[in-house]
């Protein structure tokens, strides 16, 4: 598959993964093979067929909009790489 059609570097930008040159080259080769294999779905006639998003006929499962118990804040923040003032600390977003 050509790099014009499938460019690992570009896709990695989309999903926020920093790749080394070695990784980019290796994934480009490995995943081109996988995508080529996946193209066999092109040959199947799917006209008039409904898509399956998941296997069960369940739609719009709703619950009552009422207060429920939630996880303990301090316990949750223990897992945060950085927190301050009872909140998650993020890298600077605005200049």
């Amino acid at each position, binding site marked *: 598959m050509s790099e014009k059609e499938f460019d690992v570097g570009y896709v990695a930008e989309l999903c926020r993964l920093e790749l080394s040159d070695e990784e980019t080259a290796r994934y480009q080769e490995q995943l081109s093979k996988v995508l080529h294999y*996946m193209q066999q779905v092109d040959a199947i006639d799917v006209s008039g067929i409904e898509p399956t998003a998941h*296997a069960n006929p369940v739609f719009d499962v709703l619950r009552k909009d009422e207060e429920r118990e939630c996880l303990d804040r301090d316990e949750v923040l223990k897992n945060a790489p950085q927190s301050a003032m009872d909140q998650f600390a993020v890298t600077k977003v605005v200049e």
Partner: protein
Amino acid sequence: MDLAKLTISELRNQYESGDAGPKDAIAAIEKAVASRDSEVGGYLSLDFEAALNEAENADLSKPLGGVPIAIKDLINVRGQPCGCASKMLTGAYQSPYDATVIQKLREAGAIPLGRTNMDEFAMGSSTENSGIQPTRNPWDLERAPGGSSGGSAAVVAANTAIASLGSDTGGSIRQPASFCGCVGLKPSYGRVSRYGLVAFASSLDQIGPMTKTVKDSALLLEAIAGHDERDSTCLKEDVPDYLSELKGDLNGLKIGMPKEYFGEGIDGEVRTQVEAAIRQLESLGGEIVEVSLPNSEPAIAVYYIIATAEASANLARFDGVRYGHRTENVEDLRTHYQRSRAEGFGDEVKRRIILGTYVLSSGYTDQYYSRAQKVRTLIRQDFENALEKVDVLVSPTSPTPAFKIGEKTNDPLQMYLADIFTIAANLAGICGISLPCGMVDGLPVGLQLLGKAFDESSILRVAHAYEQNSEWHKNWPSLD
């Protein structure tokens, strides 16, 4: 007696007779792990102290009272690590809550003990993608235990656990069960709550039991199954008394052999063993019928399009902000994301996120993702048609016995093709079980039975009837 070598039922008998108690079982597992797990590497960590505390208060009147169960490292157990065998989470995350299956296990009296190794974020078929350590097949330490629930299968086979929980997105319970010679059951989509399971592909994932016998599988499934309002895909279906369904022969049951599953590509010895097992099912009263699943060929392609698409969305949550690895010394948010994810994820996870992002990206969605969803409908209909004619389907679980460690690691496509007989059940949402049906050159062979959605009773019944008339489940690797 080595209590670690017992089944759930046998251990419960020990408790009932007063010959041993839950603390003895925990101590036996500690000893077994010390002597056998250093070679196998099935566990990532074990908290014996916490388990002993729970054993102290175990209620033996409950169905799983005092029984320790090993847990795959992607199911949340309060206060324990849940690392998904990834550098992204290992050492950086402790569960603030119990998954619903853990809550249910506790209600049944069981004690969660030990985190089992797996392919990172359940992506793989050999456990070689673990970001933490390799796990070796207890039958042959040069070989892979299968995956992604390779640790959960290996600890059961090595008798360093009584039973375990795994998860199955495309065969991740059944294939390692087959490779390690134990019983692995993937429940129907919607049978078991996934609340507290770290999501890989949400339209495919199910949690299920990995055990030494079919009876144990029924016991454990009954404990974890049932509706949960915290998982909107978990259906309001009654949970049968699976144990009582295990009785009887196979008279009147129709067993389908999908002709597409007995074509080329199956190891000759595996085929011989599976065919012998099918003859045995026939001698037990089952009627063998040939059936067809015409859309079997594209199933792997469809699966890897859908599973990677869903994975790319699910794993977007690992952003180095709320939990997990965060890179150091960056000034801007984009680099923070890119570098945290690059440092936290391993090769296969990166590959799948990239694939999934690509098949969902502008200009390619119709060609890949939407088309795959439509072919998925055809695959689902194939199973509906076949399972109208027969009660269960039978096939090998895997086309080969356990392969050598390192054999397929450089060729992801070859690794994906190993899932040929297991992935369609996830696409169709039906249930499946793998149980031992033979040995080839010292390695176990697995028999797969597939049943209608929510008809776990039939696959358990057929599996149990076969097991009671075979000796394979009494056969364990010698590691002492």
